């Protein structure tokens, strides 16, 4: 049971870290890019754009179709 709690805490901490990074990225003059900025940077190429959009489609299939 302890390992389960550790696993859940790990997920919560990592997801919280993503929100903290987004918050820090939105501060004026921050060197940390926001999620939208680095995704947009990757999506400048057609391959990157296709990869990110396929990832979005996979997420929807994984969580809402199955």
């Amino acid at each position, binding site marked *: *049971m302890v*390992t*389960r709690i550790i*696993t*859940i805490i*790990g*997920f919560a901490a*990592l*997801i919280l*870290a*993503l929100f903290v*990074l987004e918050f820090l*990225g939105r501060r004026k003059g*921050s*060197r*940390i*890019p926001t*999620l*939208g*900025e*680095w*995704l*947009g*940077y990757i*999506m*400048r190429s057609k391959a990157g754009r296709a990869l*990110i*959009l396929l990832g*979005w*489609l996979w*997420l*929807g*299939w*994984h*969580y*809402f*179709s*199955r």
Partner: protein
Amino acid sequence: MAADDVPRWPDLPQQEPSRRWRLGRPALPPRLRNPAAGKAAAAAVLIAYSWIAAGTVPFTTSALLIVLVPGAVLAVIAYVRPPKRIPPPDRLDLTGFSYWAIAVGALFEWEASAFKDGAPGWHPALTTLIDPVLGTRPVKAAGILIWLLAGWALVRR
């Protein structure tokens, strides 16, 4: 000659090229004149779609379609009439981006180790944890709505 009074090139008046010719794409109806009404209508459609989609039974054709249809619609919008794009940054700060890379990489590693462990009771994967939460229709509908909005945000990038 009978055709002497017919104007010839380059005397012909300049004609406005058709919208289809200018854009190289089929002419579409003009955008809605009231943006607020358009946004409200889009929000209503998205909320209704999310609610209906949340009612589908997993592992069925309809459950597959509720994901494929928005994907196809966004693909058509992105190709036929792309929205105004948010310009991407010219460069990324490598140090700043590395924080994201570490956090996202760690999340994938944590998920992969839970998946590989194969013991949902002791070491559950994120999917195992989220599935019961998505079991209720309002939460699943909210999740689908967020997913749809994320897709739209990606098309604008």
